[in-house]
């Protein structure tokens, strides 16, 4: 019996083959790194300081409760403005502040009296990609928007695969009336115009992150069922399934322990493309204004701002470049995985 996680020679061979496809492998490393880094975005892109030394005390404000300005010698009760504090402590010499690389959070408006946003990129102000039309840092919104999009996509992927794979496998395995019934249900379901449903729902309520996942999921699980159904049909007819049956294995044991591991290459091949689809789905919904409520940082919202303000090229170009890079990397990964799992290269039986 094959196992999913046991590194048998075949798996090692697949991994080596994946590694040998350079651009896919490097894309995978960079992409994974980006996802990991985005988990700690608060220490890289934030208006809160990494470290404050004030009157001999050390503060680490990145996570947890706010530190009111009064605590750090500023006369107010709301959250300290660490960029101002940095300047102040530098002048007075009574301490120091270490700020993250991009010292802005994605919500705050960095405005001034002399000119009007959007402000072009400026290293002096640490707005490396400029600001949007209400003075929020584009880079900060890109980073936090990426985090939202990627986790949206990953959660969507896991849940929709769970549903799609189970139903698809069951359809293929049981066949008959069950199969027929579900085929029709899916056909009808997939004819409901997805976008209209979203528009209707979001006009009567504000979708939050998880509700949006549920809505997209309602229509997102379908694709996988077709593939799984076909593969399961094929696998079901193979001798090892018959052998398992002869030994008295239960249906669920046959599906999950025998058939599923043999179809895993199909599933894995689709994963990168599903991730890309998830990102695109969220971005387009946000672009159209049916996605996450403002002021949530999102790529779609940036894209829509950018396309309405083509005079301020830095907005639209930042988000398009970021999106293209991510999607290209995902595509490279997908391509490499498909190559690595290509059954023609590994199949041990005909």
């Amino acid at each position, binding site marked *: 019996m094959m196992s999913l996680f046991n590194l048998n020679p075949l798996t090692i061979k697949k991994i080596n083959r994946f590694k040998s496809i350079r651009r896919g492998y490097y894309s995978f490393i960079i992409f994974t790194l980006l996802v990991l880094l985005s988990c700690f975005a608060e220490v890289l892109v934030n208006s809160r300081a990494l470290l404050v030394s004030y009157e001999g005390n050390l503060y680490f404000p990145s996570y*947890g*409760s*706010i530190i*009111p300005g009064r605590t750090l010698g500023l006369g*107010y*009760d*709301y*959250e300290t403005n660490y960029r101002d504090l940095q300047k102040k402590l530098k002048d007075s010499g009574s301490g120091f502040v270490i700020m993250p690389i991009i010292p802005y959070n994605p*919500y*705050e*408006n960095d*405005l*001034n*009296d002399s000119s*009007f*946003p959007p402000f072009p990129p400026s290293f002096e102000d640490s707005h490396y990609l400029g600001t949007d*039309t*209400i*003075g*929020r840092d584009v880079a900060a919104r890109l980073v936090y928007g990426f985090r939202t999009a990627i986790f949206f996509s990953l959660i969507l992927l896991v849940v929709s695969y769970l549903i799609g794979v189970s139903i698809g496998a069951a359809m293929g395995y049981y066949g008959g009336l069950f199969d027929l019934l579900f085929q029709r249900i899916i056909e009808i379901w997939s004819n409901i115009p997805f976008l209209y449903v979203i528009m209707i729902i979001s*006009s*009567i309520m*504000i979708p939050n992150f998880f509700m949006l996942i549920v809505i997209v999921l309602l229509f997102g699980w379908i694709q996988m069922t077709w593939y799984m159904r076909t593969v399961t049909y094929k696998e079901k007819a193979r001798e090892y399934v018959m052998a398992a049956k002869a030994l008295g294995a239960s249906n669920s044991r046959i599906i999950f322990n025998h058939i599923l591991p043999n179809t895993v290459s199909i599933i894995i091949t689709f994963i990168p493309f599903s991730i890309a689809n998830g990102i695109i789905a969220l971005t387009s919904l946000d672009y159209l*204004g049916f996605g996450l*409520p*403002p*002021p949530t940082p999102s790529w779609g919202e940036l894209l829509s701002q950018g396309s309405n*303000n083509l*005079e301020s090229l830095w907005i639209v170009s930042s988000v398009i470049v970021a999106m293209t890079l991510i999607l290209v990397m995902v595509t490279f990964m997908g391509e490499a995985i498909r190559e690595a799992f290509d059954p023609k290269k590994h199949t041990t039986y005909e």
Partner: protein
Amino acid sequence: MIFNKRSILSILSCVLIYSSVQAAPKLPGNLEWITNDSDEVFASPKAVKGGKLHSFLLSFPLTLRYVGPDSNGSFRSAILGNKMALVASHPNTSGLFPSLATHWAYSDDNTTMYFKLNPDARWSDGKPVTPDDYVFTLEFMRSKEIIAPWYNTYYSDEIGEVVIYDDYTISVSSSKPRPRNELPSHVALNPTPRHFYKDLTGFVKKYNWSIAPNTGPYQISEIKKGKSITFSRKKDWWAKDLRYYKNRFNVDKIKTTVIRDINLAWEHFKKGKLDIFGLTLPLYWHEKATGEIFDKGYVKKLWFYNDAPQYAYGIWLNQDNPILKDRDVRLGIAYSLNMEKVNQEVLRGDYVRKNNYSSGFGDFTDLSIKARPFDLQKADEHFTKAGWSERGGDGIRIKGNERLSFTVTYGSDLVTSRLVVLKEEYKRAGLELVLRKMDGAASFKSALEKKHDIWWGALGGGDFPQYWGTLHSKNAHKAQTNNLTNTDDAQMDRLIEAFRSAMTTTERTDLAKKIQNLIHYQSAWIPTLETPYGRVGYWRWVQLPDVPGTRIGGPATSAFDFSSSFSTSDGGLFWIDKDIKKETLAAKKKGKSFPVVNVVDTTFKVAD
């Protein structure tokens, strides 16, 4: 939700009555006939006739009817503009001036107005306007066939009857007494041609695309379905030499073409295919309206301040919310609303802070009321007084288990950019604002049903301030009423009732001011920003009077509202100079330039 002022006006002004066949009734003997031949003239004597104005619509109208299903689109005001009423309102003095009637008089009980009709008045098909056409307006508007329940009710409940005294004298009564300055907007009917609408059966379908005779300066002369509609000037219009109509409605043709995308329309304008373009939005005025055609002086820019009644733009706090019930919390919210930052640092200072619930209503407006400024210190005092002195780990104020957090419901993307700035400012005050963007209709519905904590939007409309619907306790605590703040206050009720029954202007202005002060004191409605101006760009061959607009109407030209070309009250002040057009087009070919014209007109600006 904003009620279209023009449409409400026109609703009010097309009232009719029904005449009973009786022996000729007698005119009361003591009538004091009034006319107006002494107010200032607002058209320019320099105006010349001729030329063609190119305008655009974002979508083709669904009907040419002005009542009934689908008639409430933006095209409707073009039809209504050419339906004149008995009297019109002067855009600068707000007094009446003669239109279809030459003289008018009031009954002593403030319910009826008497009119002497102008014998020259003609329909566009050449037939004279008869007293019976006013009677027919009532029959028409009360008819079930027009499928317009609102009008059916209004003309039945609010308007009394039309009485014909002789061929040129009629009276129109209201169903109840009204203050003298408000009575005309109800009883100064516009006539409906009985000879044209012989049988109203199947009105909606039968008259969907028919061009009804009118009395105004223009009539539709060409329709290309889905593409364009052309209006032509009546060369021998019966009113063309009347004092307040002279030198107006100058262009021979007004062609309005359907351009479905505003960005595309802007490109048409830049090529000179549209003559006028509205530039009120900061993005257009500051960013888009730059470049060659502006730098070389081919297109002029006008920023025209007016003094028209403004909608009550503001945030509406629902006092049925247990936290918002506390006046100190509401004051805290008012003091931490940093509208100035939004205006100065995002909106380029283009907007004006609204101060009063009823601004732009002339004598009715108490100019001494000023919106509360952004002041975190004062906000803190009020929040503390209300028991919200502590702050949680996220900097938001807490009281026991409760957080000081409110949802703000709104219905437009334009507002998002303002609210995200305000949200950050509110954080400093220790208040959390959760944004709830819905589509326009859904957002208003949620407010009507009182499901909001805070609603961002405007109510208003009409020439006179109104308070009963929005502030009287009768309309509080129930769905589908305009009392969005759920104001339920005995003193307010007393003032509003007194205001509604007061008949003299001094009494009414006095009470209106008291109500405004009470609104300010209660602070359940907090003013935001208003735009008491219009901005337009127009090719230099479009000519405007020396004062390029009117107090109520705004700039003499506005492309988004092309119907203003027709308004009897203030429309049609511009004209087109064909020689300058030739000269400009030739210069454009050669790259020659003219002096740049960028006018800010403050004739009617209200002092800060």
